[in-house]
């Protein structure tokens, strides 16, 4: 646990941090609002006393009632991992500013978060599905996407899911084409 990092964070971006700064084991955790993402990330990345240059991870989280985007940063100025939780993103229309202006590598991470959770990152110029097929309809890692209990109900059941040209009128009435959406809880 890095006490000095906690003090520096409070001193530097005090108002933008929502709630207390939690510290456990080797991790320091702050929560911010979606609107503050660019300023906070730029501050942490650029300012000489932070220099969080390495984006370790960008994860989407669905907490049942709201969406979160979680950044993990590493810096040589601190022995801790810094975890930034962007909280309070609505599940109906999840939107979050993109981090690609700092880390180009965040582009695919955000694509993945969009693919799995449907979080739209504003500013990401290539926000497509990255894992699932382009005509897939649901967001698998959301909490209302339940895994089927048996193989017969699973979306992969007997599917010959070719990456086929886009012809909704024809492909839709092909019984083997559609990937079934899991029942919502």
């Amino acid at each position, binding site marked *: 646990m890095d006490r000095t990092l906690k003090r520096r964070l409070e001193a530097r971006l005090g108002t933008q941090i929502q709630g207390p700064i939690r510290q456990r084991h080797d991790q320091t955790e702050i929560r911010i609002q979606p609107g503050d993402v660019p300023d906070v990330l730029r501050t942490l990345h650029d300012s000489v006393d932070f220099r969080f240059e390495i984006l370790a991870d960008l994860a989407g989280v669905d907490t049942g009632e709201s969406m979160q985007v979680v950044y993990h940063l*590493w810096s040589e100025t601190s022995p801790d991992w810094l975890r930034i939780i962007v909280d309070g993103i609505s599940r109906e229309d999840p939107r979050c500013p993109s981090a690609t202006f700092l880390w180009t590598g965040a582009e695919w991470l955000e694509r993945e978060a969009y693919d799995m959770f449907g979080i739209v990152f504003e500013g990401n110029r290539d926000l497509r599905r990255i894992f699932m097929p382009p005509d897939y309809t649901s967001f698998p890692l959301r909490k209302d996407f339940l895994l089927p209990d048996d193989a017969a109900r699973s979306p992969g059941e007997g599917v010959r899911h070719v990456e086929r040209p886009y012809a909704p*009128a024809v492909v839709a009435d092909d019984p083997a*084409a559609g990937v079934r959406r899991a029942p919502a809880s």
Partner: protein
Amino acid sequence: MPARPTRPTTRAARAETRGETRPQEPRPPEQHRSEDDPRIMLDRDVGADLYEPIPPYPTRTEREGEFYTRGDGEMFINIGPHHPATHGVLRLVLKLSGEQIVDVDPVLGYLHRGVEKICENSDYYHVIDQVDPLEYVSSLFQEWAAVLSFEKLMDVEVPRRAEYIRVLSGELLRVASHTLYMGFLALDLGGLTPILYSFIERDEIVEMLAALTGARMLFNYFRIGGVNGDLNHEFMSRLGDWMSRAARQTEANAGLLNENEIFVRRARGVGVLDRATALRFGVTGGNLRAAGVPFDIRRAHPYSIYPELDFNVPTRLEGDSLARYLIRVDEVRESIKIIDQCLHNMPDGPVMAKLPRLLRPRPGRAWGACEGPRGMLGVYTISDGSDQPFRFRIHDPSFLNLETVPTLLPGNLLADTMTIVASLDPVLGGIDK
């Protein structure tokens, strides 16, 4: 008498008498039916365009539209998902002019198995088994990241002997992975023999790990708070045999390529990844160290007994494919040093901490990261107090390493695609999760 109504002859007529109408398939005149798959309707006439990888659906993003607009003299060529040189099922859509690459659009997800979702629906012991096939070349590191995160989540103290065994087996597997890397790099450059020599080493190592863990590839070995079993005699004897010639054999295998003029000429100066770009892309592991950033989690954020071990982090400044290759060669030497130290001061004691059968960690979040052969493997776990992780996020280094391909490829020749992709060392299992 009234004439009997004559029975309609054709089936269509009969259906009409019954009031049914046979469904007519809609065939708009401006569309054409594909020849190889009659279910496919094309908005263009069937011709060479049928074989273009231009997305038939409307381009959805700015980047996609920019990529799929073709200048004159440019052609698209589609490498993968089945291609001998894409390690696994990666698909690269290249935009070529002649043999020179103008732009590239990687398409992932051909191996997306939904591991995160499955892990969120299985309890903590099963998660370790489920994350195995992600980094299928070096499974132990994925397990290691998972158990690191879980141990932070549950405040478990790991016995020192277990830590030593983890480091020992992990470094063995790192050697195996790097040896395979050299072989595959040579194979993609057209050399047949080095890959077979690499596989000899890899087979030695996985056989001795099979003696330790019981599996050749997907060892379900690490446990929360220790490892599954203690060292046994067969493992130690095999390890002794291998260590007696490991260093010499590694030098021999490396010399097969290092001193090959054709290999060096093809790898040097190809796919230069400089420091700023690497940091901006979040590249980790040997690819980042080849760009001159000494970022190795074993030193930058020590997590096991690595602070006690004596090894150094090889770093190079060129950042091209040859540097990435040479970094691996140096890391193999370092790993052999580490294995030697582990064998010499291996402590005695238990290999598992005392844990309940059913793990219900109190609600919280934990991030565990370890240094795999390809870079930082991280796992972010959220516990809601139940026996299953509420959110289980896997971070794979190959994912971000591969993301640099659209930056590295343009301007090179088609043949350099294989050099660059192979030198970045992607593992599609980890990339696609």
